[in-house]
């Protein structure tokens, strides 16, 4: 702001149409801005830049947390908490990793802690299944294997799958969701939950064994 603008704001003079036009030109559309630019603006005090980050990553974070909780109300609350915590800590974010990696870690750890404290809702609140699943070759192949033996509805598969995942411990469920559902590498998972790659692999091995037992009817 120029000196005149500062004085004018203090004396509550309304800005001239010319000044308003200049301010409008200076408002940058940050939709295409990269994460580093947005984070820098947020660290300088521009909350509106953080809105772009929220809009950009809310769905991916929601999906991760939902897969771990199988409850969309819990997932919504936890993702909101993650964004709030990240905003409050944004000034200490050193940009050693990407913003998404950083907030992903926050969301996963908050979810694991939330589940360990037993504060999650004790019922499923499952999202709908996208109709595009009918075109997924993996699903078509699986269904062709199962249905000759027994009739199975998609909702039954979804409930059994979520039920089996909920029977795993929080840490085992987290690695299965991150690796087998979301496709993260062992190294990324190890960074997200602060453990070694060896630990990730052993948890994955154990979790898959458990799931094979729990879902034997469909395998």
């Amino acid at each position: 702001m120029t000196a005149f603008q500062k004085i004018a704001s203090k004396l509550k003079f309304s800005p001239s149409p010319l000044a308003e036009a200049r301010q409008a030109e200076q408002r940058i559309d940050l939709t295409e801005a990269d994460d580093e630019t947005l984070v820098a603006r947020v660290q300088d005090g521009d909350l509106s830049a953080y809105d772009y980050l929220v809009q950009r990553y809310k769905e991916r974070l929601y999906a991760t947390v939902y897969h771990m909780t199988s409850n969309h109300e819990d997932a919504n609350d936890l993702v909101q908490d993650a964004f709030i915590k990240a905003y409050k800590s944004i000034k200490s974010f050193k940009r050693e990793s990407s913003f998404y990696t950083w907030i992903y870690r926050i969301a996963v750890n908050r979810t694991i802690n939330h589940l360990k404290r037993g504060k999650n809702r004790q019922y499923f609140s499952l999202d709908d299944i996208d109709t595009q699943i009918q075109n997924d070759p993996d699903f078509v192949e699986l269904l062709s294997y199962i249905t000759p033996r027994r009739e199975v509805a998609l909702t039954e598969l979804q409930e059994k799958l979520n039920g089996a995942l909920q029977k795993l411990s929080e840490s085992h469920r987290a690695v299965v969701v991150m690796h087998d559902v979301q496709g993260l590498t062992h190294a990324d998972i190890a960074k997200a939950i602060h453990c070694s790659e060896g630990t990730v692999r052993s948890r994955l091995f154990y979790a898959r064994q458990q799931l094979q037992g729990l879902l034997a009817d469909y395998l």
Partner: protein
Amino acid sequence: MHDFADGRLAEPVARQVQRHVAECSDCRVFQQREHRLQQLLAVKRHEKPGAAYLDNFLGEFHRRLAVEMAPQPGFWQQLGDRFHRQPLPSFRLGYLHALGAAVALVLIWRGLVAIELPASSERQDFSIPHSTPHMLTATLPADRAVLPLLAQVALNTPRYVLDHIAAAPVRYEVASIHF
């Protein structure tokens, strides 16, 4: 086998494992079950919330952030807020409460004064009948109105209760209580 299923093995090793799986039925079954488990887990990738479920996410975030960032009230303000949330009873109700409390105090005081032991210097034994083979005695100073009600209770306690609380069949005495 997990690394093979995940495609993490180097090419030469993967070929060797592939040859082994073709020959070993157990490993082949294991690999097939792993493959189907991955296909089943892939169903979760198609789970999505309703179209408008996250539309108001940003608004909700701003609302929650405003609550989080609001300055916390100080101790005295919190104390004042607590009284405001729990309003004190009206004057009339408070008057009745105070009167009731005063009446209760007077009755208790009168009750204490009424309970007096006989002004005798002799020690009195309050033996508990029916409690064979042992006996509990309580020796109380006669000039103090100490625990007379408890002794009376002991006298009136049925035998089967006393027998239940009986310990080893030895005689013992409670030490005298001096105030």
